[in-house]
């Protein structure tokens, strides 16, 4: 309980620090963001007006104050390129990225833990070597490349899945929450759901399978650690079945640290989603962030990064708290 309370008290402080670091990095460059692009389209008077409007004529600490003030009210600013409030853009672009990252996480958890368990129970046999090769390959293959290879094999050659996008052309979908899974399940829109899953599977596999490598390695070493414990030897001496020992005694104890790491890895998966999205023309944060960077739309870059970082911090907090709830050994401490 005390641990959870401390973490909750720390949360706003961490969020403030993350916001400040983002602000600082975005404003690292001397000069203001307007001078870089806008000079081509706007005349001097317009430039001055926009500058005042965005508060760019103010000293940095004033801008920072304004930024924090807006942030507390849940206002991430306005996109400099389109004039649309960022919260609205994010409301539209964030769900696809989260859908993708969560699906990838599901795949990487199942495949990773599976491979790790197989590897640890067949130590130094070919199955172990196979699983370990898979794991180290997963760590080494770049997301964007495996994404291209997957499209080439499964979409271009085998024609199993669409080349890109999130929903097929002509599919009737009425966004409410912008999470297709939730929306279609609520309204019973099965054609849209099927089309969505068909589009989702390939990018999710591209991210999920590569990051499963990390999970497999963690599971393997956690399992090997646990398998050496005294209670495993007792269980063996008692004559328990191998499978019972592996799953009820070893895995249950080995899995907790793996799950926590998986929570921490969600940030990596979000990063992976942002990059992989570009290959699959998945309409999420990745496209939005890259466009913002190329247009030098600093407000959007700042808003997007901040949003993802906040999401990541909160996610980590939830995972840590869950970990404490699940593991009785930590609860008593």
């Amino acid at each position, binding site marked *: 309980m005390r641990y959870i309370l401390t973490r909750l008290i720390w949360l706003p402080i961490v969020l403030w620090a993350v916001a400040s670091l983002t602000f600082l990095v975005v404003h690292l460059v001397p000069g203001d963001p307007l001078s870089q692009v806008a000079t081509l389209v706007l005349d001097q008077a317009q430039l001055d007006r926009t500058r005042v409007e965005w508060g760019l004529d103010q000293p940095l600490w004033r801008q920072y104050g304004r930024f924090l003030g807006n942030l507390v009210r849940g206002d991430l600013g306005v996109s400099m390129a389109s004039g649309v409030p960022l919260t609205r853009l994010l409301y539209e672009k964030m769900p696809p990225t989260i859908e993708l990252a969560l699906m990838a996480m599901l795949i990487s958890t199942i495949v990773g833990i599976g491979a790790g368990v197989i590897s640890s129970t067949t130590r130094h046999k070919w199955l172990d070597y196979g699983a370990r090769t898979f794991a180290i390959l997963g*760590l080494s293959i*770049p997301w*964007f490349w495996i994404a291209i290879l997957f499209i080439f094999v499964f979409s271009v050659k085998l024609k199993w899945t669409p080349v890109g996008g999130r929903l097929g052309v002509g599919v009737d979908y009425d966004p409410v929450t912008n999470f297709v899974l939730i929306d279609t399940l609520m309204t019973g829109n099965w054609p849209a759901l099927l089309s969505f899953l068909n589009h989702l599977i390939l990018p999710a596999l591209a991210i999920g399978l590569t990051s499963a490598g990390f999970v497999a390695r963690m599971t393997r070493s956690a399992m090997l650690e646990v398998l050496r414990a005294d209670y495993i030897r007792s269980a063996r001496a008692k004559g328990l079945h191998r499978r019972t020992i592996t799953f009820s005694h070893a895995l249950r104890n080995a899995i907790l640290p793996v799950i926590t790491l998986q929570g921490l890895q969600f*940030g990596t998966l979000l990063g992976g989603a942002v990059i992989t999205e570009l290959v699959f023309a998945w309409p999420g944060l990745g496209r939005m962030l890259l466009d913002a960077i190329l247009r030098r739309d600093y407000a959007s870059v700042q808003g997007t990064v901040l949003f993802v970082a906040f999401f990541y911090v909160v996610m980590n907090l939830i995972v840590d708290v869950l970990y404490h709830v699940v593991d009785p050994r930590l609860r008593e401490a």
Partner: protein
Amino acid sequence: MSVAKLKDSNHLVTATSLSKRPTLGRRLTALRQKYELALLGGIFFALVVLGTIFAPWLSPYDPIKQDIPSRLLTPSAIHWFGTDESGRDNFTRVLYGGRPILTTGISSVLLALLIGMGIGTAAGYRGGLLDDLLMRAMDIMLSFPTILLAILIVASLGTGLINTILAIAFSLIPTFARLVRSIVITLVREQYVTAAHAVGTSDWQIIAKHIFPNMIPPIIVQATATLAIAISYSSALSFLGLGVEPPRPDWGLMVSQGQRLIFDAIYIPFFPGLAITLTVLSVNYIGDGLRDHLDPTLRNR
């Protein structure tokens, strides 16, 4: 523990050495069997580095000059990896294309290592408020998804080799700082450090003589693992178009430019991507070998 498993532990090697004198050859064979993959990784990585350095001597083609008549040729004996949209030899471009990635990867790890060591040593050695402040700062940097932090910094500083290095280095600092701090904290409690203090050795001398040398093995392991990550990040940044500028060859950039040709010429994005994968893989194998060798608790895994 079964006898078979004992065999690869160092104990038995020394035990058998009583009866059979370990010649240099026999020792090398044993090492080779144990670290086969790490060795292969090392050789491959060395070849990649040499290949990028000696690219002008290894290939008769120019990596940048266009040759429109011979565009989009499929791989053959003349053009091993085929040619791209502008008729440039892909093999040549893959050779040259390793330069920016290896430069940014290696330099950013060295830079992050240097800064991280400074921060970690200061925090671990001094302790107290300084330790708290520095480590909280590291925690905050770690609350960003790392690649996103690097993207943010490049977006702000602008693209270019130096900025890529700074961006990747900055996002890798916390890893080293935390590791170094944890090592320093345990070392400071050692008796020989207390003894050195007692005889009036200065802090700098203690750090240089007693702490720094003990830090090296774990740091080498961490640096190798981090190098694999840095190379991945560098390729991801250049894939996003935030690395080197287009006419220059670069693995990440070549994959992103070849992406459009997926229907007609998959070999164009294939080879540079394979180069990234194999390079990162070789570094990962080196890292694993070093870790197994330097961390005795992992020897029997």
